[in-house]
C-alpha cells in the first residue's frame, strides 16, 4: 500500500539576498521571514516531488525582475502549524502556498519569525 505524498509536505522559502540567510548557522534569518506590517501571507512553494534542478528552475522563474536565486529555507508544514499559522495551498500557481494567520502585533510576528529561523534548513544552490 502506498501513501501519496503531497508536493506541500516539503516547503521552500526562496531567498535571493545574502543578507537574509546565515551560512554560519545554516538557517534563514528573521528578516527573511518577518512580513511587512500590512502583509498577510508568507509565500512558500511545495517541492517534495521536485528534483533539485526543478527547485532551482522554480526559484529562478519566480524572480521579478529577473535575478539569481541563492537558495531556500526548507520547512515542513508542521513548522508553521506549530506556530499557530495555517497553510493555504489554493492560492497562486500550482506549487504556491500562502502561510497565513499571522498575528497583527509586530512583537508577535518577530517571535514567530525568530522561531521559524531555527526550524529552517538552509539549502544553497
Amino acid at each position, binding site marked *: 500500500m502506498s501513501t501519496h505524498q503531497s508536493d506541500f509536505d516539503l516547503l521552500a522559502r*526562496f*531567498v*535571493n*539576498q*545574502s*543578507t*537574509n540567510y*546565515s551560512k*554560519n*548557522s545554516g*538557517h534563514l*534569518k*528573521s*528578516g*527573511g521571514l*518577518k*512580513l*511587512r*506590517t500590512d*502583509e498577510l501571507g508568507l*509565500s512558500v512553494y511545495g517541492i517534495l516531488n521536485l528534483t533539485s534542478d526543478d527547485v532551482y528552475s522554480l526559484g529562478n522563474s*519566480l*524572480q*521579478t525582475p529577473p*535575478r539569481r536565486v541563492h537558495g531556500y529555507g526548507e520547512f515542513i508544514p508542521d513548522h508553521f502549524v506549530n506556530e499557530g499559522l495555517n497553510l493555504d495551498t489554493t492560492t497562486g500557481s500550482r506549487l504556491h502556498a500562502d502561510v497565513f494567520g499571522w498575528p497583527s502585533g*509586530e*512583537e*508577535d510576528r*518577530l*517571535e514567530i*519569525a*525568530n*522561531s521559524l*529561523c*531555527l526550524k529552517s534548513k538552509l539549502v544553497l544552490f
Partner: protein
Amino acid sequence: MIYTAATQRQIPFEKNISASFYLKLDELLKDEKKIFYEASIASISVLGSQACEELKEMIADCSVFNWDGNNSNPINLASAIRAEKFLALLPLNISEPELSLDGDGQVIFQWFSKNRSVSILIKAEDEILFSDIDGINRAKGSIQFDTWFNEKLSTLIQSLE
C-alpha cells in the same frame, strides 16, 4: 576614529563614499533629515567589523522597493542609523551579530547558537523589539532605544556566551 563611551571600542571609518552611493541616498532623503543622515552615514561605513560591512551592503543593495522579490520595502534609513549606533554600543565580549532586513526595511540583529536564536529589531522610532527562542523557552518584549545599552538587553545578550 570614533570612540564609543560604552565600549571604548575604536572604530576606524571610511571617508571615501562613492558618488553613486550618495546619489542613491539623495533619492531617498528629501528633507532636512539629509544633513543628519550624511553625518551618520560616515559612521555607518565603519570598517573592521563583519556586521558593519553587512549594514553597508544592505544600504547599498536594499534601497529600492522589492529588493528581495517579495515586495519588501526599501531599507528604512532611520532604522539603519539606529542600527549603527546599536552596533557601536554592543559589548565587546559577545560574538558578532548577523544582520538582516524585514519586509518593512527594518534592521534585525541576530545571534544563533545550537538551539537558540535571539533577534533584536531596530525600529525607525525609538523602540527595540526582541525575541529570544531557547529550546522550548521563549521571551519577547520591547524597550526604549537608549544611548546607553539597556540593562535588560545587555543581560539577554551577555547570556548568549
